[in-house]
């Protein structure tokens, strides 16, 4: 089922520029209900508020990394099926394998294009 434009999306990245870029692209793709968090811990706190339909997260972040947040999301009954899209500069195969094992929904390597983000969202919500 295609992504609902009203879906609430959480963008987690320690870099304010990356959060703004992802938010802007999502807006251009028709998704304007976007919230932000600066690290995994803050992301998990936001997710507790409920109502999120997708998480777009970086990997390398202080306090709590994206992969640790992903594991926490999958371990929580309330969020275990929540789609998580990893957007990261970690382009090693080992990273990708680790993310897949942790239950990532899809994986984008930085730098990326709007088309790539759109394509991955379409794959998550076919």
């Amino acid at each position: 089922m295609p992504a609902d434009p009203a879906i609430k999306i959480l963008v987690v990245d320690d870099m304010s520029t990356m959060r703004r870029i992802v938010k802007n692209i999502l807006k251009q793709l028709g998704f304007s209900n976007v919230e932000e968090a600066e690290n995994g811990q803050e992301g998990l706190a936001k997710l507790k508020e409920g109502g999120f339909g997708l998480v777009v997260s970086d990997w390398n972040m202080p306090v709590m990394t994206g992969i640790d947040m992903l594991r926490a999301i999958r371990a929580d009954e309330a969020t275990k099926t929540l789609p998580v899209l990893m957007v990261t500069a970690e382009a090693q195969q080992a990273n990708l394998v680790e993310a897949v094992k942790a239950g990532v929904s899809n994986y984008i390597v930085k730098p990326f294009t709007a088309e790539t983000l759109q394509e991955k969202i379409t794959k998550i919500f076919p």
Partner: protein
Amino acid sequence: MADANGHLYSELGELARYLDTTLRKLDDAGAPIATMSDQLPEAASHLEGLTKLTEEGTHEVMRLTEEIQDSHALIAGMISKATALVVKGQIFPCVACLLRESQQLVAQDDVHLIDSRERLAGTLSQAAETLTKGQSGNCIACALTESKHRLLQDDKRLIEIMTSLSFQDLVAQRVKKLTTIIHDVERKLLELVVVFGLKHDGTQPEVKTEATDLLKELNASSSNAMKQDLVDDILGKFGFN
């Protein structure tokens, strides 16, 4: 037995000379090591400043890009409205009005996409003129459709500008890794200073290296940098208007 003792003394003498030379060399290295360990925190601080500078610059480009995107959304809405009116054959002056407003918006805010926007402004202007003269609507609808198409093309370019700004994140991540390495080297140098007692009492002459000069230049450029407001105030006091 006497030969063996002589050989032992000779070996011990050799070892003592080697230790003495090594200690002297370590002592000579003391000042450069101490100076380097002093400089490293500053170098790391400049690298962190670099991240901040690129972050600020990137946000400014994003702000301007977002303003153009918002303006595009408004113009696209007006063009759609105008197209609908033309297709329905409704009153022309009202359409001309919308077109002029669109044209003004196009002219207002763009210096970056000049060529494309000038073409768009020309098309809008032509459409408005034709409508004002009360000419027929079919070609106007075409012109409006073309204008909207060009706007969409520009929107794609704007998204490309936005995404290409992700370079800042990649730069920041590499700078962070460099800073970590510098801190690690600094820690190891300090360990050397402590272990070998290579004290740097501050009265020793500074060891001049290219790095020292570069660091001085960096310090001068960051600590002496003035904000434009302050520059203008000072210029004003000298009679500059």
